[in-house]
């Protein structure tokens, strides 16, 4: 569908009898908009692209070690295609059309969860049918498919977009985690059971030396003895006392508990799901039991208490068994301890063995259920609550408390909000909830039943911040910064400005037919009536928004771009949503109003200080300037006065040389003849070492000569020894500049200074001058 402008529509704004324009009447609720054809928000247009739409679904769910891997099909395909490309195997046809493959998979899997291997070929068939390729391309695609199949996870489950997704992901994750830990626990119990049995057996056998036991103990050497006679003769082994009756009964009781566990509990389901009648559970897994009830939260608590008692008994028995095996059981101490032992005293790893209960309910909790819900959250029982939040359910917005906000008030509850649109985030919050071993609440945003484009709706809701993603984990640390994490969606840039596209609650509402009545359509070039874009309206000052009419850009089914005025009711919801998002940002530390105000105050204070400083500096500068001017003028006048009074004739001449302008002597005519200037001796400045002029003539520090013959051997006319046997430059004309430089380099005492080259020396070059500079 191509966006286009409707140019032939005449722009008229009907006005009613009371003089209020119709758009305003609509906005104020004085009139209603009859149902018209559906509209689509322009800001959400980019979400229609396949890359956006099918980025996250369908999902591959696969067990991996003790966890569940959740990967979108797009990612799995991309990895497989990249692998083939690395090997140099062509996959061009498939790679160019992979979104059609995903589309075929989406249509076949629907909202359910199927083993990929079961529908793989069917998906490929539908994919090829969609492409309708030529024979050659079809053959190429078939060969590519043969190469691709081994890289696709055949044993994985394929999950579609639907309300089964969160339940499936949760259950599979839990089962994967519990499988290993449950097996280990089972083995531990069995070992202890056997060990306790050995204790009892040894005690029984201790009462006499039984020939059979003796024979076993002696082995082959038993053939040398009359074992039965020996058994009668041998005394009771020293240190072996019969087991106390109380101890025996404790051990037997413990074994009885273990036996019951091994027999019964291993057959118990790993997870119990409790839901009310209005919630359908489209998941059927082994090791999961399903319960229905009116008061799910209350029943979850009761079920937990029932199941946990049996588990606690086993944990208690494990402790008793270990003490008995070590022989360290002290009734005085341990009886009371074990009697008071409860599941709250378990170690962290043992809490993974406590009964797993999942309560699934819709998010609009009210009435007595609300009370049960709160009781459950403050019970501390590690029960997981999953609330399904249908987007824009009319009833809950603004009328009922947000359950996640309510749960946060309990402090020790792990609270998360997630969305079906982000399965990876959903998996992550489930992992977090299971790891905390606390009561947890997860609110999952779902599209609801009968929605035409569920993913579109979910994405719009997420990007419009109507369904935020966050997690509050009280076990993560002491501060809110440690506990609270908020996912901020990445908005794409668009339009000519390149600014991020802004989506609001109104764009989400525009997608739902039931909310169509909140929009009044106007032509896109309508500029009257104080129209203001909703994103600006929400952040405008009250005096501006009071006289403005909020709208969003939409497109109708024919592709015509229009402006949709929003009803006041919807605007209130948008404001509430905007405010809620701001609050979340502040809570997450992303946007802190206090910090912003402090920053503004600090900035203003710094500006003020710098301005004051500038003023002070300017004043000082002006004062200094005036002072300098005054002093300079005074000096000039003093000099002039001295000259006039004839007290310092030298000053006249120096004044004349210093000052380019002629000195005017009052009462005397200017001398027209040229005045013989008194030569002024220029003061030679004491030069620093850095200002020393370059040496002009070559010379040697003769006193430091070590008489090594290097220079004299080079040119004994240029260099000669004095009577002390120390070198000096005898005749500069007798040698060349090159020889001077060479001698300077060869002199071990570094006392030869080549100076500047003579006129007419043909050996001079820039390189030599550069080399000589080091010795000058």
């Amino acid at each position, binding site marked *: 569908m191509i966006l286009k402008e409707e140019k032939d529509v005449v722009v008229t704004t009907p006005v009613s009898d009371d003089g209020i324009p119709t758009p305003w009447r609509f906005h104020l609720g004085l009139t209603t908009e009859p149902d018209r054809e559906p509209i689509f928000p322009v800001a959400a247009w980019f979400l229609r692209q396949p890359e956006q739409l099918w980025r996250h679904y369908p999902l591959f769910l696969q067990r991996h070690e003790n966890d569940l891997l959740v990967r979108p099909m797009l990612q799995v395909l991309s990895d497989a295609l990249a692998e083939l490309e690395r090997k140099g195997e062509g996959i061009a046809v498939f790679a160019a059309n992979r979104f059609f493959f995903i589309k075929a998979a989406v249509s076949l899997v629907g909202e359910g969860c199927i083993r990929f291997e079961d529908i793989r070929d069917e998906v490929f068939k539908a994919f090829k049918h969609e492409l309708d390729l030529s024979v050659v391309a079809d053959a190429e695609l078939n060969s590519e498919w043969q190469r691709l199949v081994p890289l696709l996870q055949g044993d994985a489950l394929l999950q579609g977009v639907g309300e089964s997704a969160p339940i499936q992901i949760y259950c599979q994750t839990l089962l994967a985690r519990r499988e290993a830990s449950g097996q280990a626990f089972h083995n531990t119990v069995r070992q202890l059971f056997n060990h306790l049995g050995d204790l009892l057996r040894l005690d029984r056998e201790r009462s006499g030396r039984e020939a059979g036991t003796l024979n076993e103990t002696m082995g082959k050497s038993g053939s040398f003895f009359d074992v039965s006679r020996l058994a009668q003769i041998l005394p009771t082994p020293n240190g072996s006392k019969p087991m106390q009756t109380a101890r025996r009964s404790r051990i037997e009781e413990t074994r009885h508990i273990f036996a019951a566990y091994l027999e019964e509990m291993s057959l118990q389901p790993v997870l119990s799901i409790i839901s009310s009648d209005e919630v359908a559970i489209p998941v059927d897994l082994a090791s999961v039991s399903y319960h229905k009830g009116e008061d799910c939260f209350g029943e979850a608590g009761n079920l937990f208490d029932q199941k946990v008692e049996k588990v606690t008994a086993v944990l208690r028995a494990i402790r008793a068994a270990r003490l008995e095996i070590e022989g360290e059981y002290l009734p005085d101490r341990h009886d009371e301890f074990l009697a008071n032992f409860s599941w709250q005293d378990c170690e962290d790893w043992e809490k993974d063995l406590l009964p797993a209960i999942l309560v699934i309910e819709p998010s609009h909790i009210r009435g007595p259920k609300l009370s049960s819900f709160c009781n459950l959250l403050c019970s501390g029982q590690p029960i997981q609550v999953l609330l399904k939040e249908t987007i824009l359910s009319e009833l809950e917005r603004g009328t009922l408390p947000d359950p996640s906000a309510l749960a946060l008030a309990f402090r020790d509850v792990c609270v998360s909000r997630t969305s079906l649109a982000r399965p990876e985030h959903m998996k992550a919050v489930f992992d977090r909830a299971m790891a905390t071993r606390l009561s947890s609440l997860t609110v999952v945003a779902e599209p609801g039943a009968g929605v035409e484009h569920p993913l579109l709706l979910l994405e719009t809701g997420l990007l419009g911040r109507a369904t935020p993603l966050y997690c509050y984990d009280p076990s993560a640390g002491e501060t809110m910064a440690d506990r609270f994490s908020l996912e901020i969606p990445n908005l794409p840039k668009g339009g000519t400005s390149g600014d991020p596209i802004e989506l609001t609650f109104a764009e989400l509402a525009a997608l739902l037919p039931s909310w169509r009545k909140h929009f009044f359509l106007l032509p896109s070039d309508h500029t009257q009536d104080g129209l203001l874009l909703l994103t600006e309206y929400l952040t405008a000052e009250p005096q501006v928004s009071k006289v403005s009419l909020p709208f969003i850009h939409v497109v109708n089914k024919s592709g015509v771009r229009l402006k949709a005025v929003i009803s006041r009711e919807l605007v209130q919801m948008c404001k509430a949503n905007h405010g809620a998002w701001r609050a979340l940002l502040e809570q997450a530390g992303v946007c802190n109003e206090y910090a912003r105000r402090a920053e503004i105050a600090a900035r203003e204070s710094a500006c003020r200080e710098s301005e004051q400083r500038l003023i002070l500096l300017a004043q000082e500068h002006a004062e200094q300037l005036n002072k300098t001017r005054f002093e300079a003028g005074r000096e000039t006048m003093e000099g002039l006065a001295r000259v006039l009074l004839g007290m310092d004739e030298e000053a006249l001449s120096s004044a004349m040389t210093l000052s380019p302008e002629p000195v005017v002597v009052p009462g005397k005519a200017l001398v027209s003849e040229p005045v013989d200037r008194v030569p002024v001796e220029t003061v030679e400045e004491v030069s620093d070492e850095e200002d020393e002029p370059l040496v002009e003539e070559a010379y040697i520090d003769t*006193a*430091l*000569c*070590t*008489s*090594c*013959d*290097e220079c004299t051997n080079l040119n004994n006319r240029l260099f000669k020894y004095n*009577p*002390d*046997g*120390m070198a000096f430059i005898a005749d500069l004309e007798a040698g060349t500049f090159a020889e001077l430089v060479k001698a300077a380099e*060869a002199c*071990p*005492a570094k006392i030869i200074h080549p100076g500047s080259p003579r006129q007419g020396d043909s050996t001079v070059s820039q390189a030599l001058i550069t080399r000589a500079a080091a010795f000058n």
Partner: protein
Amino acid sequence: MFGLKSDWVLEPKPRSFVKEDYDAGQAKWCPGCGDFAVLNAIQRLCRDQQLLPENTCFVSGIGCSSRFPHYMKTYGFHGLHGRAFPVACGIRSRRPDLNLFVATGDGDCCSIGAGHWIHGLRYNMKMVVMLFDNNIYGLTKKQTSPTSPKGTFSNTHPDGSFMSPMNPITVSLGITNTSFLAQTVDWNPPHLYATLKAAFEHDGTAFVRIMQRCPHFTPDNYTPYQNDPSKVLLMTHENGIQGGEAVEKTFKTQVVHDPTDRPGAFELAINHDVLPIGLFYRNPNAERYDNYSSVGADMSPADKVEAIDTLMDHYVV
């Protein structure tokens, strides 16, 4: 002969010598070797003192330094490795009229000749001992010597020497009856000359350690001091080496040190931060063995026989 003729009176004309009179030829040391500076300073000294070449003797052992007698047009004795001292002591004992110089090196004196060195200093016979210290056995092409710095790579220590070097000055300070200990450098001819002159004028054994550059085998040993004169500590005193204004201008790091202060001399000698030059120690009252060992040098053979006969008569029965 028909009588003496007045014009046949042989009166030796007064002789004056120039530096070239002591120059025996082109020295064959390596280009840039510090020995050249010492040779020149000694020749200047001989000229300035107008030493009779036939009354001057240079004794050496083995080494680059010990080539010295070959380049002086005087008498010389190029002896065995480490044995310059005994030869010089013998010459001194029987020819006390000679101007005696000893040229020895750090290997020749401090290693194989160490025993003679100790007693040579102790005997305190009048001579000038020049220790050409280039920290290496150079003539034999790079072996570690007792004064080689720790870590010196040589043919005998390919991985670097692992012993700290000996300090000839501190060793000499510990020898009884030492009378003159000085240290100088070859790259400052004024100070070198002044030191050798003071050594020559001393009555006794004047031991002068000359830090001598070896451009071939140890080119970098003295480079820091040569390039940065502030690392050289000039010992000054009215009784010390008078180098002159030029020397004091060159070496600005100075300390006033009384040459009679033996402990102070030791403190200065063990200072590793700077290279002290000047006179460490002087004892003009030290005993001189050549006063005893030269007894009888002026006796004729007949006198000696008579003296022996006189002695033997005591035992005649």
